[in-house]
């Protein structure tokens, strides 16, 4: 067993700064109004943790301050843990601000522990969080090392090792310090029996789990089945350009979540909540013809959909949901780039074709794009049908009248020769035309619309002619039993 402990030292601060658009010096205060954590700008101005908010404001009048929000930290930690699920099957939360991964089983895939730790830190940084990752034989040791940023337990101060209040109380730390024991390494070197007599069984149990003498099972998280993430913006956003930045952050979260679960999303939904609260939230669904995983693919189509959408004047809450999750099949590239053949090349091309359809549909609307399918029907109106592009299915739909019986193949094969000439342009529906504008060239060809179909055209006998209009266009016309002439297509 090898454990990777990851500590997020600035998590209480980062849950606020990632939602803010303007860059101001920020501090986090506790319930008593004392500064707990400062960002780099505030620290540079001389604001230190432990001071009062009033003195901080006297140093920097333009200071942003937030009251610490453990619930928000917990939600964020959970999301980070799910993003780290890609590295290990056992990911365990260690609040506040810590995550532990069992990596013994992952080393073969990711190389060595140092490489894996670097990758985990990079993922957290991409999600907007400063992280420190250290590894050790036991989860508590790994986390203690990560909290202290130390390389060995000899350098871990006792204050950093107090992961939970039950482990080491402040009183115990002070008594140790009075004994001259300030680091975890020194504490472990002391004889256990004497320690037990002075400090009780609680500390001994902690040290046993820290050193691996006692088993320390950790419950793993179960990743959520659905992705839903909300960003509470600190100030309302009015412009569509500005809202792209928080969108990028949410999409980054989504990308890591999808990668960890090896899923792709065929649909994402945005929810824009206006600041007043009384007005209706605006939904913006964005669909994809193929499942997507990368942030840029989501953002590309989202931007197009956003340009056409009517947003509330001031958005304060932004929510992203992923829908229609599909198992992710990663792009496989050929070993030789010039060999464009086989299933992988075709799949890659489907992706490229789908991207164009997504772009067009995002800007022009869902119904603006369609493809055509041929149906096994003899009337021109029913011989084709629109369908969504890239929908997998037969390119020929069987008609209801020909579904059974052995004659189907014969009928289908014989059709091109049996049918008369057909135009390339079709009018849907046919247009009425005056007979004196036409010169008939070929015909007639009798097409009987089926009496069994019902509707307005039921049982109509049409005589089709190839004709020439007065302006020279070659057209396909028919005359119905009532001697009405209709233009049905152009050649």
């Amino acid at each position, binding site marked *: 067993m090898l454990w990777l402990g990851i500590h997020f030292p600035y998590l209480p601060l980062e849950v606020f700064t990632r939602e803010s658009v303007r860059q101001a010096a920020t501090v986090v205060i506790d319930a008593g109004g004392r500064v707990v954590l400062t960002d780099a700008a505030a620290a540079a101005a001389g604001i230190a943790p432990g001071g009062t908010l009033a003195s901080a404001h006297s140093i920097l009048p333009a200071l942003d301050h937030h009251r610490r929000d453990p619930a928000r930290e917990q939600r964020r930690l959970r999301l980070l843990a799910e993003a780290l699920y890609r590295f290990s099957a056992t990911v365990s939360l260690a609040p506040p601000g810590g995550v532990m991964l069992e990596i013994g089983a992952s080393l073969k895939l990711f190389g060595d522990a140092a490489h894996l730790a670097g990758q985990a830190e990079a993922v957290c940084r991409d999600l907007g969080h400063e992280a420190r990752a250290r590894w050790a034989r036991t989860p508590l040791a790994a986390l203690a090392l990560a909290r202290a940023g130390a390389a060995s337990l000899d350098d871990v101060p006792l204050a950093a090792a107090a992961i939970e209040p039950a482990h080491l109380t402040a009183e115990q730390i002070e008594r140790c310090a009075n004994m001259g024991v300030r680091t975890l390494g020194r504490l472990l070197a002391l004889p256990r029996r004497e320690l037990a007599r002075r400090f009780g069984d609680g500390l001994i149990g902690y040290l046993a789990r820290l050193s691996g003498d006692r088993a320390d099972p950790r419950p793993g998280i179960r990743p959520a089945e659905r992705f839903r993430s909300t960003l509470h913006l600190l100030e309302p956003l009015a412009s569509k350009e500005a809202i792209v930045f928080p969108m990028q952050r949410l999409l980054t979260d989504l990308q890591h979540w999808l990668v960890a679960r090896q899923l792709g999303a065929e649909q994402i939904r945005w929810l824009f909540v206006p600041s007043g609260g009384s007005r209706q939230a605006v939904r913006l669904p964005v669909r994809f013809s193929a499942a997507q995983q990368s942030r840029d693919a989501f953002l590309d189509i989202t931007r197009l959909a956003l340009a056409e959408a009517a947003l509330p004047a001031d958005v304060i809450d932004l929510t992203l949901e992923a829908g229609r999750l599909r198992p992710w099949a990663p792009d496989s590239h050929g070993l030789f780039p010039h060999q464009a053949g086989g299933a992988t090349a*075709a799949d890659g*091309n489907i992706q*490229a*074709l789908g*991207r*164009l*359809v997504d*772009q*067009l549909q995002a*800007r*022009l*609307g869902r*119904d*603006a*794009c*369609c*493809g*055509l*399918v*041929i149906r096994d029907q003899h009337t*021109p109106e029913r*011989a*084709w049908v*629109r369908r969504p*592009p890239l929908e997998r299915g037969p*390119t020929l739909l069987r008609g209801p009248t020909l579904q059974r019986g052995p004659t189907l193949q014969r009928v289908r*094969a014989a059709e*091109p020769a049996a049918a008369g000439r*057909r*135009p*390339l*342009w*079709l*009018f*849907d529906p046919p247009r009425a035309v005056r007979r004196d504008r036409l010169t008939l*060239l070929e015909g007639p060809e009798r097409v009987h619309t089926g009496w069994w179909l019902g509707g307005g055209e039921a049982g109509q006998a049409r005589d089709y002619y190839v004709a*020439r*209009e007065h*302006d*020279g*266009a*070659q*057209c396909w016309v028919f005359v119905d039993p009532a001697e009405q002439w209709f233009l049905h*297509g*152009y*050649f």
Partner: protein
Amino acid sequence: MGGRLILYMHTVTLSGPMSIATAMRRPPNRPNARLADLLAHPALWQAGRLDTAAAATPSGFSALDAHLPGGGWPQAGLAELLLATAGVGELRLLAPLMAALSRQQPRWVAWIAPPFVPYAPALEAQGVQTDRLLLVHPATHPQTLWALERAGRSGSCSLILGWLDERRLRAADTRRLKLAAHQGNCLICLFRPAQAAARSSMAELRLRLTPAAADCVTVDIRKRRGGWPVDGIRVPFAERQGAVALQAQLDRWRQWLGQRQAMSRPVGLEHDREPAMGRPGVVH
């Protein structure tokens, strides 16, 4: 000709290693070489030469191919068909190209704002693979232009057919479309009324179609790369019908052959099992 003098001015933009100015400033020890250098410049076109370098797809009509640069429709660029009337035979003229592109390339043949419905069974009979067709119906003129440009730039279309609002189309738009077509390596084909011939356009190829006799169209090449305009090319569509019938027959043969091969293939598993069963000394 009498005493008439024809002055032909051709403006070229030289961006290569040598410009006209530097060519002229060279020492005059080899005057012919200087001229040859100038004439060899790729951006300079001589009137007697038909440009055959560009990649092209045969149009399927020999009468037209003889006059098109490269012997067919350009692979990438902007073409315009100027129609005397809708239904003059513009689709039948393009059907062989559509058939070839839809079969050879796994890319879309996009129809942007078509005025009528393309009749799929007839297109299939012409050899077009109908599942490659993408019909786009934008609501407004700016959306149509955007869709044309986006489709052209995307690189996932081999041919784009576009119908635009003639009153709102500007010459600058055609320039954008031409650039998009070259970027995405596709042919954008615009359908415009015959009156548009008088308006300037950046299209590389402009053909005017006028109705002739039945199953025949007269094509006037108003503009082509590396050549003069040509008028009165008669394109008979009947020529194409034979080729389509032949192709259909070939397809049917190929399908039949495929079925035969699939039926006669032996089943592999029994093949592997036989020697193991017969091997001596194996205790089952």
